[in-house]
């Protein structure tokens, strides 16, 4: 009996130990599901094989639940390299540059798959890429051209809305310049490498980087992103017209359009240049270093005469607005309310801007209409400022008369007090 009792005890102990073992194994397996053997090893490796947990956690794919194996295959649960990086686990190893667009597209070109993350996300990137210079060259076997990871980075890919993303509007020009400003890298292609340097001097860069206007143009705005190509001489105005609508409409109907087309000149770029577009000024109509008309026109010809009239009209309106501003400022400094005239001044400024836009019709009469309308408003505002100053002077004369009356009253009261107290 004692033997049997001991046997049962032994069995109970074995059962308890077995249960404990199952629990421990379950817990271990549970932990095993959250481990990532890829990162555990690669975080300790130097570049280019090194990828830390910290870096990968910044990646939008990691945040959406994808892991190393989603792109590279393999088994992240195993610490045995023959298993985790074995052919049986479908390990792909380092992705060949030529395969990158196709690999990314395996998800990004699948609308059904992408919808679960962002229903509004485009899925035509690969098709676009095939139309781009990058894509065409890549298809032709050029492995130096940009593929997805060159612009979007790898292992720490952030959404474009993230200011730290390499494809955020504020970073795009820098990202493109990594290749396009590298003279040695670009040498085989025979294209300029000063685009970024010029862009940094432009009004567009100023708007984007200094004024913080994220809608200001950067490389991709004019060239496209996945389907990046140079706009082509005859399409330049279409690119600029996306933002500068009125100028483009006027140019389309102007005499310059036909002339530029005939000469094969690239529209807007002829006067404004491309990457280094500076803030336009009235000096562009002059004959100085910033002047652009006389590069093609002859002194004294019909167009030169119109140019002189247009420039003098604009300068006259600019001067009239400045003068009215000064008069109104003096009146304001004297405490006069000239807010109505101040408001009207903005209309005069609008007319000046309109006249500068109308230049793209290259018709002096049309520009003059806007100039005259602006001059009329500026003259009215100037008069309002003068009237305010006249009223200010009248107030001060009135004050002087009041002072005199008060002084007489004070003297009279003082004399009366003296009389009754004598």
């Amino acid at each position, binding site marked *: 009996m004692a033997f049997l009792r001991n046997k049962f005890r032994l069995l109970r102990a074995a059962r308890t130990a077995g249960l404990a073992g199952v629990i421990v194994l379950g817990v271990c397996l549970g932990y095993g599901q959250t481990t990532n053997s890829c990162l555990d090893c690669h975080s300790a490796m130097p570049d280019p094989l090194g990828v830390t947990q910290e870096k990968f956690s910044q990646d939008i794919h990691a945040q959406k639940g994808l892991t190393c194996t989603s792109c590279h295959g393999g088994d992240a649960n195993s610490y045995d390299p023959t298993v985790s990086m074995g052919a049986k686990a479908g390990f792909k190893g380092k992705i060949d540059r030529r395969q990158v667009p196709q690999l990314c597209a395996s998800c990004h070109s699948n609308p059904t798959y992408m919808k679960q993350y962002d229903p509004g996300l485009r899925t035509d990137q690969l098709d676009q890429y095939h139309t781009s210079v990058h894509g065409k060259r890549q298809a032709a076997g050029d492995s130096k051209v940009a593929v997805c990871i060159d612009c979007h980075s790898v292992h720490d890919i952030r959404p474009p809305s993230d200011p730290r993303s390499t494809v955020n509007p504020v970073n795009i020009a820098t990202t493109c310049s990594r290749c396009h400003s590298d003279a040695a890298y670009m040498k085989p292609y025979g294209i300029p490498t000063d685009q970024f340097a010029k862009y940094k001097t432009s009004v567009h860069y100023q708007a984007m980087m200094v004024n913080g206007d994220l809608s200001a143009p950067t490389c991709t705005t004019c060239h496209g992103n996945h389907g990046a190509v140079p706009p082509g001489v005859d399409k330049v105005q279409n690119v600029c017209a996306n933002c500068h609508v009125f100028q483009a409409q006027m140019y389309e109907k102007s005499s310059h359009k036909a002339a530029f087309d005939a000469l094969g000149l690239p529209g807007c770029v002829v006067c404004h240049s491309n990457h280094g577009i500076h803030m336009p000024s009235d000096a562009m109509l002059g004959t100085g270093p910033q002047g652009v008309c006389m590069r093609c026109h002859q002194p004294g010809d019909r167009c030169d005469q119109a140019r002189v009239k247009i420039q003098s009209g604009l300068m006259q309106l600019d001067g009239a607005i400045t003068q009215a501003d000064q008069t109104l400022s003096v009146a304001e400094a004297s405490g006069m309310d000239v807010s109505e005239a101040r408001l009207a001044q903005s209309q005069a400024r609008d007319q000046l801007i309109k006249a500068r836009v109308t230049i793209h019709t290259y018709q002096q009469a049309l520009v003059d209409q806007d100039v005259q309308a602006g001059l009329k408003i500026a003259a009215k505002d100037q008069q309002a400022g003068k009237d305010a100053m006249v009223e200010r002077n009248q107030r001060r004369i009135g004050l002087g008369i009041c*002072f005199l009356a008060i002084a007489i009253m004070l003297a009279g009261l003082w004399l009366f*007090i003296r009389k009754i107290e004598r």
Partner: protein
Amino acid sequence: MIAAILRWLDERLHLDDLIAPFRHKTVPVHRLTYWYFFGGITLFLFGVQVVTGILLLLYYHAGANDAFESVQYIMTKVRYGWLIRSIHSWSANLMILTAFAHMFSVLFLKAYRKPRELTWISGMLLLFLVMGFGFSGYLLPWNTLAFFATKVGTAMVGQVPIIGQPMMIFLRGGPQVTGATLIRFFGFHVAVLPGLVVVLISIHLFLVQRLGMSVPPKIEAEWAENPSVKREMKFFPNFMLREMMAWYVTVGVLGALAAIFPWNLGVKADPFGSAPAGIKPEWYFLFMYQTLKIIPSKVWFVEGEVLGIVGCGLAGLLWLLLPFFDSEPPSRPKRWITGLAIFALMYVAGMSAYGFLAK
């Protein structure tokens, strides 16, 4: 002709009996007599406020959509509108200045002691009401500075423990400063406050008339020692004529300020805009504002702002009850109260200057 009309009235209304106390009323004449003028000047400026305020009412529209434009219309289109509005604004500021000067002169001349405790209390309540006039009137043009000053000012009320939040909601007419706040402030400014002020001024003047003018203890002692140096003048017409001279000077100052520095209207309030940088309240609230600014955000376990507001409230209450802490004549006034008065004057002036210069 005038004499005949007065006689006619006197026969029916016995006006002479009413004027009799003024005929007998005298004003002490000594080296500090000129301080007596400040009460009268403050009263005169209140009269200017009433008259110019009524004229402004002819064109002012209360409401978030119209208020700014109506004041702009007064300033630019209404004949002499600029003058009326500028005088109203400058007079408001001068009235607060002369009210403060009057309060401190009463304090230093020891005129608040028995039997004039109630005169002091009514005067202090008038000073608080005058500041209430300034606060409520400041919002009425509905410009940016006024909007944000009201936002900050009413938020401070909200910091008062227990009753702060309901009071703030009551003042604003809701949780935020909106057109409803403007309508309320307009109501306070043109109806509630004037009504209260008229009642308190009547009490204040009755008490002044009833108790006579106070003589500073030092001068009273000099007069007791040498009765031959004691001098007095009749209130009517001698003092009244001198007071009128002060009023004429005040009119001159007001006219000069209005003509040379017309009151600026600023920019229309935008409730969705951000507060302008370096925004500060009007000068008469600056010492309190700066006090709140320099108190640390946490003092022991109490929020700094709450401590500041409760502290300011308690200081105001103690100031109101100051006569009850001093000795009764003929014993000498307590020195610590004089010291406190000097400290208070220097504190208000110093903090205002600090607040004005601080960024």
